[in-house]
């Protein structure tokens, strides 16, 4: 690594391109799996025309959106209208720069020295993720406002209120897990769980539950999909969007689902660690590469997302606000203090 250009520019750029491609493909195929799983839950077949078993459906959808007419309403605020989809997409993607996908690896002997398969590890990892992902609310509210459409405006306002309401209990539940790890770095979270010999989901079950509920609300998914409640608000904040701009709202939503799932995996499910990392009797599980463990856990959470959509009815807006402010907030606050006391009494989970 003599040449600094290679270390500081080429290697990160290659990783960035790979991460971007994987995230976009994941978002596209998540829509395929969502349609397929929902279809089977409702005793239908789902998409099966494009390619074998419909495997090429997301590619066809992406191509269609790419060449589709992109209408800018005559009364819209044109500049904000165009910038808003980028404002929600960019944060959803940037978050992936600090998520650790696996332990240092040589990619099955392909490289001479093991390199980390993630972009970077900064010592404020989780704070960076919470901060950057909350920028996405601007894309929602500005998009809804700039459309100059009543459905969009209502959807954007509702969405903003929902996003900021659920961010508070989410922050508290993250801090509860943070107390156990004692560091903000995402890699340190995994290492702390390795040292503790237990995934943080067991001491942090309440924190995990609150985090995941808030995560579903933050991504506007069922049963908290009020911003785009199609039976009352048409499509909410993206009613007027079409073509590629709509595709970016779609991409951001699915990328955010992957973000929530990945962060949950790192925080409480041990990231790339196998189950019970300190039990030697389970060492045969190490045959499976760490990256696969990570992907499997993320996949489980994503399946839960789709499962919820197939199962739960939508909340009403006052119920949603009551749940966030009157139930999740006090419970997460109490949980935080209990965990803090536990960490002090046991001299730390480490």
């Amino acid at each position: 690594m003599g040449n600094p250009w290679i270390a500081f520019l080429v290697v990160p750029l290659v990783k960035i391109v790979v991460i971007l491609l994987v995230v976009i493909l994941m978002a596209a195929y998540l829509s395929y799996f969502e349609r397929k799983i929902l279809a089977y839950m409702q005793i239908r077949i789902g998409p099966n025309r494009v390619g074998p078993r419909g495997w090429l459906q997301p590619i066809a959808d992406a191509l269609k959106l790419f060449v589709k007419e992109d209408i800018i309403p005559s009364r819209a605020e044109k500049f904000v209208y165009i910038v808003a989809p980028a404002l929600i997409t960019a944060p959803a993607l940037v978050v992936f720069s600090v998520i650790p996908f696996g332990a240092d690896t040589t990619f099955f002997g392909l490289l001479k020295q093991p390199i980390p398969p993630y972009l970077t590890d900064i010592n404020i990892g989780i704070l960076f993720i919470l901060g950057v992902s909350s920028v996405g609310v601007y894309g929602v509210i500005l998009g809804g406002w700039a459309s100059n459409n009543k459905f969009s405006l209502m959807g954007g306002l509702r969405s903003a209120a929902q996003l900021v309401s659920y961010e508070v209990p989410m922050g508290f539940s993250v801090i509860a897990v943070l107390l156990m790890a004692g560091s903000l770095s995402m890699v340190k979270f995994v290492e702390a769980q390795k040292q503790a010999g237990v995934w943080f989901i067991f001491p942090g079950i309440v924190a995990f539950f609150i985090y995941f509920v808030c995560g579903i609300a933050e991504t506007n998914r069922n049963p908290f999909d009020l911003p785009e409640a199609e039976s009352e608000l048409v499509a909410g904040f993206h009613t007027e969007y079409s073509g590629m701009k709509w595709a970016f709202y779609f991409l951001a939503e699915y990328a955010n689902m992957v973000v929530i799932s990945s962060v949950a995996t790192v925080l409480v499910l041990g990231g790339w660690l196998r189950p019970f990392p300190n039990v030697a009797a389970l060492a045969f599980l190490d045959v499976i590469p760490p990256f696969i463990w990570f992907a499997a856990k993320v996949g489980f959470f994503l399946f839960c997302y789709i499962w919820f959509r197939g199962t739960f009815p939508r909340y009403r807006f006052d119920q949603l606000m009551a749940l966030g402010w009157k139930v999740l907030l006090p419970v997460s606050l109490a949980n935080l203090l209990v965990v803090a006391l536990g960490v002090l009494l046991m001299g730390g989970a480490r």
Partner: protein
Amino acid sequence: MTEYIPVLLFIVVAIAFPFVTLAIAWLVRAGRYDPVKVEPYECGNPITSEAHDHRFSVRYYLIAVLFVVFDVETVFLFPWAVMLRKLALFGFVEMVVFLAILVVGYVYAWRRGALQWV
């Protein structure tokens, strides 16, 4: 600080990505202007008024104000959570006092109906 360079690169790429894609799509996509097509959607009726002329519920502002209070609290909690093992019992008691003061405000907001969405 070198570990932040890739993050900076990623931010540049992530911001450029939507705009570049939109520019390419702008070159290849279909587009036929029609005055009806660019009207705001209102279930097919001619629009009765501009969306921006309407006022909306004051509760959205209340939620925003409450959010600022509690989010600032979260910001205080982050460094405390990292250092709790070193601060030990003193840090814990101090944070309990801090949270108790906030809970008083929270209970007040609840009793005054600020959390009630009618």
